[in-house]
């Protein structure tokens, strides 16, 4: 067998050719994935403040972060953000998809305009909203002023700021769930719906018994992708509260630990912690998605 491989004239097998094409990807993946992970795991057991030499302190960093209320608060807030944003994106997205699921003139223009929030950067999105919600001269507050509504503390109160940021995020991502669901609605088998109508099923019933179950895989895909990006909420905070006023998310907390306090040990411990959580969540969601796809 070995001889065959080394004979120069013998053409490569399909399998070898396949590996050859993947090799660069594997190489970059190995370096860029293994290096930080291994490094983070090792450093998470040391005390290191970006200068000098790291000292081994065992599991102290993990003990610290697991007993830190700021960490749990930021984690809880991230969880709340994930749930609220996804629920609103799904419900409003479904309503919008049902609205758009009919033939009307100018569909292309409407689609194009609705896609705009999706493609602008989250940082620009947060800056736009802090401008138009500005307390003194933001356009939203000017318009609300016409109706004698004043001084809504969009970003300046602990009870409101985090919801404002969630609202911004929903604004940006609502078109995504809308158009994924719309794609699903357009692909629904018509005969089944006609049959349901003939059977005298109400449209409410048809929606829950037929539409939602058929769209389940798409709903799962939306949830999976949105969870994965929402648990890493960072950019929208930068242009608004910078993690202040009870808005700090988990990633902002990690950033603050690593790049404001320069605590590499605790920062990497948080990174490892975050990796474990991410893997757990993505595993659960992924197997759910596969189940939903198989049932179809």
């Amino acid at each position: 067998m070995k001889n065959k491989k080394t004979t120069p004239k013998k053409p490569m097998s399909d399998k070898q050719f396949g590996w050859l094409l993947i090799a660069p990807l594997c190489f970059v993946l190995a370096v860029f994935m293994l290096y930080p992970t291994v490094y983070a795991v090792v450093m998470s057991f040391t005390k290191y403040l970006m200068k000098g030499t790291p000292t081994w302190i065992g599991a102290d960093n993990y003990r610290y972060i697991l007993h830190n209320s700021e960490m749990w608060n930021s984690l809880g807030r991230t969880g709340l953000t994930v749930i609220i944003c996804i629920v609103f994106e799904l419900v409003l997205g479904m309503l919008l998809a049902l609205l758009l699921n009919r033939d009307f003139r100018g569909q292309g223009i409407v689609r194009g305009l609705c896609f705009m929030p999706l493609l602008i950067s989250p940082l620009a999105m947060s800056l736009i909203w802090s401008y138009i919600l500005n307390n003194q001269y933001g356009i939203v507050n000017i318009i609300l002023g016409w109706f004698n509504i004043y001084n809504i503390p969009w970003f300046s109160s602990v009870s409101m700021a985090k919801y404002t940021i969630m609202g911004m995020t929903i604004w940006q991502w609502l078109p995504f769930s809308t158009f994924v669901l719309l794609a699903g609605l357009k692909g629904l088998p018509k005969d089944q719906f006609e049959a349901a109508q003939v059977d005298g099923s109400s449209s409410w019933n048809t929606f829950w018994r037929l539409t939602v179950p058929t769209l389940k895989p798409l709903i799962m895909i939306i949830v999976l992708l949105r969870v994965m990006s929402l648990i890493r909420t960072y950019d929208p905070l930068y242009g608004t509260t910078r993690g202040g006023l009870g808005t700090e998310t988990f990633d902002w907390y990690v950033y603050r630990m690593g790049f404001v306090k320069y605590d590499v040990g605790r920062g990497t411990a948080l990174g490892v912690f975050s990796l474990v959580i991410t893997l757990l969540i993505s595993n659960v969601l992924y197997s759910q998605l596969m189940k939903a796809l198989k049932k179809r």
Partner: protein
Amino acid sequence: MKKKKFSWKRVVFWIVLISVVSLFVFPIFWVYVTAFKTNAAIRSTSLAFTPTIENFVFLFTTRNAQVPLLNTIIISVVSTLLVMLISIPAAYSFARYSPSGNTLLFTTISTRMFPGVIAAIPFFLLFRDLNLLDTHIGIILMYVYFNMSFATFLMYGFFVDIPEQVEYAAMVDGYSRLDIIRKIVFPLAKPGIAITTIFTLIWSWNEFFFAFLFTGKVAKAVSVELSLFWGATQIQWGAMAALMCIAMLPTLAVAIFLQKYIVRGLSFGAVKG
């Protein structure tokens, strides 16, 4: 043309539709309006103003915004080229030969789920030691890593759609494997490659977290320049809006002209919208 009958239902439909669309569009439209306002006009509560280009002049003379713009163009274009060089062969191989079963493909996509924060500190320290902080190469390397799994996965979907029979036919005609890729597969996959390229460009163009941590002066990206306006004690909304207008233009153009592919791109190829 048949004249459509007036119905209240349709009126309500259009009112709702127009409100929804303006909710999405108005904030972005307002940035474009603000870019042409003086700072005094921005800070007044009256809506009337006389347009001016002083913000753009300020941006390109005092702030030297052409430097971060050029940086972002260099970084996005070079990193996208590298991503495509790695991802096109890999995606094709996954689609046609799948040498490792599907395990490696899922490992690839799972790197997209890797929390960025776990990479941030190790790479920051590594780049510091290698003098790669605040260089174009450093940030390009980060973007190559973060975008290649997405690009591979998205293109995999396009390659799988190409019927294998076409390739078998070419093989019978005596084409070599490389010839098949060059002359048969590549032309057929062109739309997919184009879409993937555009999405990779947009991701790098919009990226902020790593640009903010890894670049400062020399390789400063547009997103970082934007964030600096916000950091100032007196926020210069006018200049910020002007820079945002320029930075958003390419992505808004994509929204309008490539709408057919946006859902597919954003869902990593999972939904062919």
